[in-house]
């Protein structure tokens, strides 16, 4: 019916669709080798916010297209209002649309049944470039099958971005000294001082000085990512691999009690922030530190240069179980109903090469973070300014590890607890709603039970 692979799931799915008297999925032309000469490929890609970043990606795709005589058509789809997810859901449901779609966070998990496995592409990339980010693997390798290729474009981590002038002046901490713009100069004794407890005590001082840190506590990804990173460094497990609910633990209680103290020195509006809230907070000059990719810094460069030249991106604080930073990779997925899968895979191979990644990172001013650690040595992170080295530590350096909210739970369970923002709702109930700790944990257990339903 379509392509070569045909699983029982596909059968069930297509029967279900057929019974609903839907026009059957179009018959895919069997791929004949070399047939993508003069073929067509359509891509629905994430619309990058950095001006000009899309152009570099378009150029890469066209280079490949000219070489292979394939007409490449790209639609850049914004993530604003979750428009990209809306489009992906509709395409998956109707089994038609682009050949390649880019997927943010959990969308590979959500749609993996409608996606072509790309084990060969990712396998080769790992062979070339060494180990891949465990977060990317958790999000896109489902039941041993890679359903998506981790992208460079739009992939990010969310470390601290702080005003080093304010930290020096009001908290007596020299962030540039602890996290210099050269990994070989990292000193363990210094980086070890940057713990969540230090973070809290400095946040309290900055709060008193009138420059609070701004940590979002809404229900969007910036908020969930940093809370999850903190949870992880305190050893909180929400649901384990065996789908046992483990939220009711001393670790959770410690983390929540800590957060109660930390949230008290945040501005009250953090509970309403969307992903842009912390950016505006930093850019406005009111805030001393946020946890975000360097987009805030780079907008500040345009709108408030005084702030930008005092910004320093650096590692997250360390907790009892280590130092973790939230990572949010993006992926390219090839729909199983694509008409030109081999061509699609070949294009993905091309734009995932180290050289391509280098160009993409440069085009995004260092915002994009590839999933291979061996790519972290790109020039861009060393040269972008002001001040020189401000985003050097944006790629995890030293002992910083990446983490994903919800791991190690079954991905579809983690996807729900992420999208429904269980961690931040829990924290808000406790810190803002002043509910009892036991009640909050009980509520979370109930929610998790619901997510476990398949």
């Amino acid at each position: 019916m379509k392509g070569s692979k045909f699983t029982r799931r596909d059968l069930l799915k297509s029967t279900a669709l057929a019974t609903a008297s839907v026009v059957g999925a179009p018959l895919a032309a069997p791929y004949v080798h070399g047939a993508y000469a003069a073929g067509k490929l359509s891509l629905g890609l994430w619309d990058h916010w950095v001006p000009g970043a899309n152009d570099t990606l378009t150029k890469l795709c066209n280079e490949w297209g000219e070489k292979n005589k394939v007409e490449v058509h790209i639609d850049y789809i914004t993530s604003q209002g979750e428009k990209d997810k809306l489009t992906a859901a509709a395409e998956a449901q109707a089994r038609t649309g682009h050949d390649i779609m880019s997927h943010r966070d959990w969308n590979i998990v959500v749609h993996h049944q409608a996606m072509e496995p790309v084990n060969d592409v990712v396998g080769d990339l790992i062979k070339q470039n060494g180990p891949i980010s465990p977060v990317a693997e958790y999000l896109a390798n489902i039941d041993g099958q890679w359903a998506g290729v981790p992208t460079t474009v739009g992939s990010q981590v969310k470390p601290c971005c702080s005003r080093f002038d304010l930290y020096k002046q009001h908290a007596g901490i020299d962030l540039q000294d602890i996290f210099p713009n050269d990994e070989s100069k990292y000193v363990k004794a210094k980086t070890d001082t940057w713990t969540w407890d230090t973070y809290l005590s400095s946040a309290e001082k900055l709060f008193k000085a009138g420059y609070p840190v701004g940590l979002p506590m809404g229900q969007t990804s910036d908020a969930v990512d940093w809370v999850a990173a903190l949870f992880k460094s305190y050893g909180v497990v929400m649901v384990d691999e065996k789908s046992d609910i483990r939220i009711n633990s001393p670790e959770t209680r410690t983390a929540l009690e800590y957060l109660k103290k930390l949230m008290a020195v945040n501005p009250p509006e953090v509970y309403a922030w969307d992903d842009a809230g912390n950016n505006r907070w930093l850019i406005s000059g009111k805030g001393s530190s946020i946890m975000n990719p360097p987009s805030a810094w780079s907008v500040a460069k345009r709108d408030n240069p005084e702030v930008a030249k005092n910004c320093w991106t650096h590692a997250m604080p360390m907790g009892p179980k280590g130092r973790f930073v939230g990572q949010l990779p993006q992926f390219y997925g090839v729909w199983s109903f694509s008409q030109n899968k081999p061509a699609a895979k070949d294009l993905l191979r091309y734009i995932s090469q180290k050289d391509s990644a280098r160009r993409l990172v440069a085009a995004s001013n260092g915002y994009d973070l590839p999933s291979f650690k061996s790519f972290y040595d790109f020039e861009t992170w060393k040269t972008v300014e002001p001040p020189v080295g401000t985003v050097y530590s944006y790629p995890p350096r030293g002992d910083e590890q990446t983490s994903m909210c919800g791991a190690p739970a079954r991905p579809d369970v983690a996807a729900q607890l992420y999208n429904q923002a269980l961690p931040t709702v829990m924290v808000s109930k406790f810190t803002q709603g002043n509910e009892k700790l036991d009640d909050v944990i009980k509520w979370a257990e109930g929610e998790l039970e619901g997510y476990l339903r398949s």
Partner: protein
Amino acid sequence: MVDVTHPLRSAAAPAAPAAKTGLNRLMRRRSSVAFLMCLPLIVIITSLVIYPAGYSMFLSTLNKAQTKFVGLDNFRFLLKRDVFLMVVWQSAIFAITAVLFKALIGLVTAHLVNNLPAKGQRKWRGMLLVPWVIPLALSTLSWWWLFDPTHSAFNYVIEAFGGEPIAWLGNPYWARFSVILVNVWYGAPFFLIMYLAALKSVPEQLYEAAKIDGANAWQQFIHVTLPMMRNIIAITVLFSLIVTFANFDIVQIMTAGGPRNMTHVFATYAFLLGIRSGDIPLGASVSLFMFPILAISAVFILRGVRKRGREIG
């Protein structure tokens, strides 16, 4: 449900005296012509509303991966979720409060405008209609920015007067207030024009008569204006209730359901479950919950309209 067609009944009575010859044939022709005229409507409604709605109902009976028929399990599951029950409750509060204030503000402003000298009416009417004309998605965006915690222009004013800034969208109760406020802002002008026109159609003689009976302004309002406007109030409220209940733009843009899920309504929660969390059947089930609630209120309101229609004639 035939109630709804009340106005049709009298009108549709065949013009019997006109057709003496071949009455039957005419009737037959007449009804087939009538049917043909309705055909485009029937086609549109069937293919673009009824079929998709039916398909969504089918979707709502599947499991998450859409591989298995689970009957009413999705609905049963929802009814056990705290968050969903909160959503039902919040949707009701949101819709009822918003519609109430829209109706009230519409009524007051309609009265005020109606009492102005004829010359100035157009100008005021034009100004008061502006909210309804700006595309909702864009005006909500500007509201959102007015409420934005870091840049809130409202807080600027409050602070200028020495007050404490308000976390408009950060505090769940203020957030509820804010989304309702935006809905009222957007919807009140619609009530205003509906009421304004209705006010104009109240015969002047009724007021004269009431005055001769010694009624004061308030009594005139209660005994003349309100009864005359009751139907249009009911219908406007019904339409607004439907639109408000199903509203997606305002909540999605302003709060996306937060903080602590305390502003989620049906549409945004359905979107969260169906699209963001990838459980389309569950999302469809949430949307479907709206239908019976609205249908019941529609039946009640329309029945009232019909009954009063009979009384007044």
